[in-house]
């Protein structure tokens, strides 16, 4: 298997300037192709900028938008991940990431988890996606797309890996914050992201490709630091913080096989166990079944009753 050259477009999109950003994408696609890249990844909302608020509707595109078709055509013999505001037929707006291959849109992932807390307000302006799928790609491996916050939910990486992804691609607009000098790399956000990406790569024994934007929208500065992590959890490439650029690195997809043979975590996953327990938890949380793992007098969602701990071991039927 010949090495795969990955290009990470760590760009600073211009907020709300769709045409300008599209033109920039075309330039970068040309540049990456000339550099021999087989996969080129742009950041979350690279075509529109992040902090759109009410501008979201103005820059939204339907999937049959000719501007997307033109971008897809430009990919030819490359795989390119772009991100934009997608408007559905029923006029919901999604934060979308699309895999463009062979001149067409091969797959669209709609951001599943929309952070609406702290400095984030996404749910106010966007709808959340409902589908999580790994898809085949011309790269010869399954690809799983995720957008930023999607990776702050454990199940996403695992579902994608179980569904056949060997290459997990996360596109982000992650605002840098927490400059406490005690942080490992001087930036709290970067430390957190690095921890979770290495963990995901190792636990799913997959490559993780992370493309994060740079630049400034209003108050917030995006930190870049795009990365490629090997299936053993080791960083293959780390782009500098805050610096705009097209960064490339090579990986050997054969590493996935090596890692999965040596460390068969994915083989040993128990999805049927997850489904069973999750189905139970969903029913219990909805009040459709009593909480079978809680003390009798426990407040809903708390599991532990006030007073002395008693009870039989969970999972065993009490003797009558």
């Amino acid at each position, binding site marked *: 298997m010949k090495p795969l050259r990955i290009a990470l477009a760590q760009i600073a999109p211009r*907020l*709300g*300037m769709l045409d300008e950003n599209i033109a920039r994408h075309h330039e970068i696609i040309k540049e990456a192709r000339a550099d021999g890249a087989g996969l080129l990844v742009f950041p979350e909302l690279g075509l529109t900028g992040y*902090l*759109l*608020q*009410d*501008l979201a509707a103005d820059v939204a595109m339907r999937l049959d938008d000719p501007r997307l078709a033109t971008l897809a055509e430009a990919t030819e013999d490359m795989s390119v991940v772009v991100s934009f505001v997608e408007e559905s037929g029923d006029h919901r707006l999604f934060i979308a990431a699309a895999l463009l291959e062979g001149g067409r849109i091969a797959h669209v992932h709609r951001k599943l988890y929309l952070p609406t807390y702290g400095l984030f307000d996404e749910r106010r302006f966007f709808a959340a996606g409902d589908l999580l799928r790994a898809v085949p790609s011309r790269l010869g491996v399954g690809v799983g797309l995720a957008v930023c916050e999607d990776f702050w939910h454990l199940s996403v990486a695992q579902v994608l890996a179980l569904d056949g992804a060997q290459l997990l691609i996360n596109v982000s607009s992650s605002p*840098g914050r927490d*400059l*406490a*000098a*005690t*942080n490992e790399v*001087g*930036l709290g956000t970067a430390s957190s992201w690095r921890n979770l990406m290495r963990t995901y790569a190792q636990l799913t024994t997959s490559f993780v490709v992370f493309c994060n934007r*740079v*630049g*400034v*929208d*209003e*108050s917030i*500065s995006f930190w870049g630091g795009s990365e490629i992590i090997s299936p053993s959890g080791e960083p293959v490439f780390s782009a500098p*913080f*805050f610096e705009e650029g097209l960064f490339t690195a090579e990986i050997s997809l054969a590493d996935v096989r090596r890692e999965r043979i040596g460390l068969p975590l994915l083989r040993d996953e128990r999805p049927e166990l997850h489904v069973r327990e999750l189905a139970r938890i969903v029913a219990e949380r909805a009040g459709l079944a009593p909480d079978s793992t809680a003390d009798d007098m426990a407040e809903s969602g708390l599991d532990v009753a006030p007073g002395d701990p008693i009870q039989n071991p969970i999972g065993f039927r009490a003797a009558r």
Partner: protein
Amino acid sequence: MTALYELPAELAIDTSIARRVIAEFIRGQLRQAGFERAVLGLSGGIDSAVVAFLVAEAIGAERLLSVLMPYRTSSPASRADAEAVVAKLGCASELVEISPMVDAYFANDPDASSLRRGNFMARQRMAVLYDRSVTWSGLVVGTSNKTESLIGYTTLFGDSACAFNPIGDLYKSQVRQLAEALGVPEAIIRKAPSADLWPGQTDEAEADISYPVLDRLLFWRVDKRRSIDEVVALGFDLALVARVDRMIAGSEFKRQVPPIAKLGPRTAGVDYLYPRRRPGSARV
């Protein structure tokens, strides 16, 4: 030689990353607004000195205008410190005495309190800066820090007025740390912070609390969401905690855009929500 300043451990920041973020922030704010230059009021104190250094680092000193706006009771040492910053950076500077404007207003009101006078001076300086913003073709850069903003030690539409603020999320202790990293003259870092409204005035005497203690308290209460009981357990005096809590709550209005009565279908700041800078909003 005593330490240049006291830096509580939990407040220490990575100054190289802070400088990187702030430089990009300053350039971004100017570019998105269609400006290439900046203007600020240089008091001789540490906050405006740090911002001047940051602006110079981001866009070059030649694009910065520092305006010195002393009142007749301002300390000559403040002016000398401000001039030292101008000399070190090599930026343009202007001297605008505000005494005639302020004294003209209070001529028939000799008993006006120092609070009224101080606020009026701060707003007069704001008016001068926004006028110079036109003559210099530059945006007004804010120089208020997080400590004074949280306790409300600012004049509404006075020193807090600006187009953008690079240090508004840094406590005084962190501004000092940044000042040292930037090479701000030591005398400015070392001296007691003051609004410089009358001889001998200092922030810490007026608020009856030291900056390192206040910064730590604000950090634990605001950034780390610790309860009153929890910060008392950390060693803070309960009466002090209660007093600072009141200062924070009492100045909430100074940190926000004034509310507009909701009447129509779309109201600015309520359900008409756009970025401050968007396509078409940059000056051409």
